[in-house]
């Protein structure tokens, strides 16, 4: 017996909905509603936010307080709502054009600030509502009405953008892989922090038919051929993988504005170099490159500027460079990056 109580979360009086027959958005809306219902999220503790486009209309069909933002701004709105009302669960329902193109900057920065919101992106790889123009996630070579000879640019990989931040939660699934899809929804809703579910979905009317698919079902079979599910913890997902890439807060973050304190070796304990000895370490014949600065000797072999040659413009290896660096356009900070190996003989 299927539990139909999720319908309490949907404005059934407004059905039939606005989407075309065969569209994947219905599956997204239904499965999200089912999961919200199972988790006990309701109109007292949950707000949905959406952007513009076919997928942006999802919020309007939910029996929750819903905010339908201008194009691309759903994430910003969701973050502000969560900031003011930490007691509310905030869920974003939107699409790839809204979140990836016009809202791309907000995707980058909202994920960086990591508010506790969950984003469901109906990724149909096309601008559906406006008639089937190429979108940011349209695969290269796809013919659309704005790329009549095939899309010429590489698609935007939403996962790659998100996983440059830490912590992150990025899941990719499709409307066809139902069990996987449901598992991703649940895990994303329970994730503390910014979670993003990239749901590969079909737009049969304005994309699929042009690609040669006769029915939505044929597109689902195509998803099955294109993608395979990967299990277990991942840092990243390859383009043909469905799964969850996530990382909790990095173990040790250096608080901003606090510089690491280096353990200073006592001056007296350091090896002493005479100018002649120092001259020997000029990088030739596999020897390290040393320079002198304010009474200390630094090993600058790792400096990319000294690779291959003995000299780097005006600075000569194996020499006391105190006076040179004083008049150099760069500061002395540059020197302090390198390890101290000794001291200069006075």
């Amino acid at each position, binding site marked *: 017996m299927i539990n139909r109580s999720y319908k309490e979360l949907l404005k059934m009086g407004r059905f039939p909905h606005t989407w075309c027959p065969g569209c994947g958005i219905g599956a997204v809306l239904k499965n999200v509603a089912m999961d919200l219902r199972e988790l006990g999220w309701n109109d007292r503790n949950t707000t949905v936010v959406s952007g513009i486009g076919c997928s942006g209309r999802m919020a309007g069909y939910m029996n929750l*307080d*819903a*905010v*339908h*933002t201008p194009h691309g701004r759903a994430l910003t709105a969701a973050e502000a*709502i969560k*900031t*003011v009302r930490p007691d509310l669960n905030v869920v974003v329902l939107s699409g790839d054009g809204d979140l990836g193109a016009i809202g791309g900057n907000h995707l980058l920065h909202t994920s960086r600030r990591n508010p506790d919101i969950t984003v469901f992106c109906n990724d149909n790889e096309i601008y559906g509502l406006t008639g089937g123009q190429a979108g940011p996630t349209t695969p290269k070579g796809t013919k659309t009405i704005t790329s009549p000879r095939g899309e010429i640019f590489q698609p935007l990989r939403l996962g790659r953008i998100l996983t440059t931040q830490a912590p992150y939660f990025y899941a990719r699934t499709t409307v066809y892989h139902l069990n996987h899809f449901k598992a991703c929804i649940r895990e994303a809703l329970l994730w503390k922090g910014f979670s993003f579910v990239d749901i590969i979905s079909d737009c049969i009317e304005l994309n699929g038919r042009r690609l040669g698919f006769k029915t939505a079902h044929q597109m689902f079979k195509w998803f099955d051929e294109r993608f395979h599910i990967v299990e277990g913890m991942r840092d990243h997902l390859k383009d043909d993988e469905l799964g969850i890439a996530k990382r909790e807060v990095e173990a040790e973050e250096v608080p901003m504005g606090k510089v690491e304190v280096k353990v200073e070796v006592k001056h007296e304990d350091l090896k002493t170099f005479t100018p002649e000895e120092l001259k020997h370490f000029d990088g030739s014949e596999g020897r390290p490159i040393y320079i002198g600065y304010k009474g200390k000797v630094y090993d600058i072999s790792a400096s990319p500027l000294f690779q291959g040659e003995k000299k780097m413009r005006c600075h000569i290896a194996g020499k006391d460079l105190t006076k040179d660096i004083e008049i150099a356009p760069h500061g002395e900070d540059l020197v302090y990056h390198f390890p101290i190996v000794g001291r200069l003989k006075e």
Partner: protein
Amino acid sequence: MKQLLSGNEAIFQGAIRAGAGYFAGYPITPSSEILQQAAARAEEDPGFRFLQAEDEIAAAIATISASLAGAKSFTATSGPGFSLMQEALGWGHAVEAPCIFVNSMRVGPSTGMPTQPAQSDLLQIKGGSAGDYYPIAFYPNSVEESFRLTVTAFNAAEESLSPVLLLFDALLSHLYEMADLDAIEVAVVPRTKEPLGRGQRLFTGTAHDRMGNVKTNDPEAYRDWLNDLKERHLQVADKYPLFEYFPGKDPDTLLIAFGITSRIVAPLKERFSIFRPIRIYPVLEKELKKVTQPYRHIIVIEGNDGQYASWAECAISRKVMRVPCLGGGFKLRWIQSQIEERLKGR
């Protein structure tokens, strides 16, 4: 206690007095001090939340969303940032979110002359976003009045359920004056709009009826909704018919000036009559008609090329003379010579 404070500080204090709980902004001279104060406040007061957004688009969307979530919210920017906020301003009217936009004007268009003062964003109040909307805007001319008008603006926002604009200019932002804010008594209108999480409402920028149901194909529902909105806004505006009028010796000539310009031409008070609109928009039609009626010559002195002058002409159905103070040049002697030139032979 009397203290020395700047226009930006007075605006922030006014917002706190009005009960503001959220600020979102993006750095831009000359409004950045408001952002800085908000950051400092958020550190001390857990009831005050703050977002330094990635751009003014996000800042404005966050301000409106925070208002829907239940906080009295405001943002501050300058001309170029205000251009980016136009989208959100239209949305704020559509979703009926009470909040404040502060615009400290500088010379435009585009980056213009950073950061010479100007008064050239008047048309942006009304004409920057798509469609019809009826914003209310105030423009103070002193530090103390900035404080009072900020509270007034918050009150008008709560009453009209819309974003209310507080115009300002670069000179007033950084003008320091003595003021005793604690001694100023102001009435504060409390929040009446139900916050998110109390129902099943849809807040949308798409045309909708009074119940929040999307109506994209129903002229009647749209007319009803827009007329309601217009009537409410004009009624609230009527509660604040703020202006100043000083009759002078010359029975024929009336100067119209507002904001910083009214301070600069104040020494001419002995000779000419001066009218200072404080509620800049909707234009003070009745008041202008009444005041201008006995005068043969009306001269509008403003920091732009005749923006208020054209509004005044519409309001009183008469031609007015213009003295545009452009490029940040607000010299009294120059203004005086321009007035003499306009009056020559008349």
